[in-house]
């Protein structure tokens, strides 16, 4: 009997918690199919009166720019930053693990730590001047390179390499394997899971980016969905339904990706967080 009550209380509390965290997403989805007038008259109606797609239709062009520009920018910027970032941080962490005592290596490590300790929003402003001097302002390449290195993924790689048995590498060296062979034949096959998790987490984190993209853009041509959403939200006389529709488009891909891969995502976040 007592156990029954405990079970009820625990499930009740957990469901309330889940409701608090999920309801805003549900509300966003419903609001995207309802007119502004309908939302105002009956804000919490659980199901739309009629599925109105006017909000989504009005998105076909935002401020004269096609929605497909934002969609493809989001995919291209997030995708490229993810692939480049995982390759760059993975190789960097690997070199630091293989021989941390080489000249300049500790300097590079401290440089990276200082970079992530610097308030990121304030780093973006001088980044603007640097991008300007390099001619990368308003260019996809500049945005991709600026956001590519994800600290969490770097720490995930460091943590992983520490778990690689040193004896295996020693044996390969005695057998006369070169550094490149050690990487491609021994480390890479072992690192496949951590690389996939790194790609997944980088993608999720880069998809969230908006501030550096907004600042390093010179016009809406390089805006992603997130930046378009923020600029739509700060306009006067906003079209609320359109904002909710755009929010749905921004959230849906990553929400689906996360639900499908939740185990790896959460494990990855943990692996990168333990040694921070």
């Amino acid at each position, binding site marked *: 009997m007592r156990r029954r009550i405990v079970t009820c209380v625990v499930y009740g509390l957990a469901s309330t918690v889940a409701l608090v965290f999920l309801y805003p997403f549900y*509300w966003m989805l419903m609001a995207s199919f309802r007119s502004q007038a309908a939302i*105002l008259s009956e804000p919490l109606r659980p199901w739309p009166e009629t599925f109105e797609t006017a909000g989504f239709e009005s998105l076909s062009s935002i401020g004269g720019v096609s929605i497909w520009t934002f969609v493809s920018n989001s995919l291209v910027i997030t995708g490229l930053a993810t692939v480049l970032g995982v390759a760059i941080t993975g190789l960097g962490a690997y070199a630091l693990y293989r021989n941390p005592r080489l000249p300049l290596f500790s300097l590079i490590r401290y440089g990276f730590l200082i970079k992530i300790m610097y308030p990121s929003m304030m780093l973006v402003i*001088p980044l603007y001047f640097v991008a300007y001097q390099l001619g990368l302002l308003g260019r996809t390449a500049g945005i991709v390179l600026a956001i590519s290195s994800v600290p969490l993924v770097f720490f995930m790689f460091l943590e992983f390499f520490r778990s690689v048995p040193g004896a295996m590498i020693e044996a390969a060296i005695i057998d006369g394997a070169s*550094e490149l062979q050690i990487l491609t034949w021994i480390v890479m096959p072992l690192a496949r899971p951590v690389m996939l998790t790194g790609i997944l987490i980088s993608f999720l984190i880069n998809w969230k980016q908006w501030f550096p993209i907004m600042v390093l853009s010179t016009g809406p041509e390089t805006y992603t969905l997130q930046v378009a959403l923020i600029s739509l939200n700060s306009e006067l006389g906003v079209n609320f339904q359109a904002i909710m529709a755009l929010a749905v488009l921004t959230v849906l891909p990553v929400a689906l990706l996360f639900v499908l891969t939740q185990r790896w995502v959460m494990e990855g976040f943990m692996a990168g967080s333990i040694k921070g």
Partner: protein
Amino acid sequence: MRSSLMPLAADRHLNALRGRLRQHAILYLFIAPFAVTTTVFGIWPIVESMRLAFTESYSALGNNPLYVGLANFRSVVLAPQFHDSLWRTLLYTALAVPLNLVSALGLALLLAHPVLERGRTLFKLAVFLPVVCPEAASYIVLKSMFNQDYGAVNYALRSLGLPPFAGLTKPWTAFATLLAIETWSHVGLYALIFLTNLQLMDKSLDEAAAIDGASRWQALVWVIIPQLKPAMAVNAIYALIEFLKTFSVVYIVSRGGPQFSTTFISYYAWTKFGSGQYGEATAIATLLFVAVFLMTGAAYRLMNRSDYR
């Protein structure tokens, strides 16, 4: 064909050296892209920002910047708006860190409850979803939850017979609203860190406590929470850095208002940029960086001194 042993040894030595040099060269090659991106997109802008902090704003971006020593730092530190935003940031952090850690601990204990067998994954998923969700969207949606006309929060309060919550329309409630929105979106990460540590925990201690006749509450306070100290330290450092730098939520939700009640230090620096006061803005950035740097350093020190793990 070799005739003596000596040259062979020297040869082997030379070969080993050559091998090591080759190894070093390839490791430098591996680290090169990482070093270049860290320098160009990290160190260079930081140095640039520190340099600008010593220049007169109107000349900062020109070819002949005028260096004015500590004048920017002086004018920043003497401005009452700076003091206000600094205290506001510290108060916000002082409230947000314990609020997040305590709620995260509560959530973790709930989600780790042995009774919760079915659906544990679903509940974990719900709590963690805001962490991976783009802030741009979640902050806008959460903001509308606090809307005075159609927000769910006031609707719920009214249906419970409670007075409405002023949300973003009054200074102190706006401050509290941002706190609530940020907690909603970050608490999942802290909760997951606690939860992972709870599940890795030594079960035998828990059983020993039960055999000794400890109540659930006593076991929690004396057995479980002490074992969570390392997770607590990691979470505290993360939260500290996160909330001292609070910016996105201000930019997206409140724009620093009403009546500057949510103008935190980083948003204050951003408004300085907006008005072209580059010298002052970078001086604030430099000060904030030094503060975060010292605090993180002190926290690491504290963590290493006590024998965690």
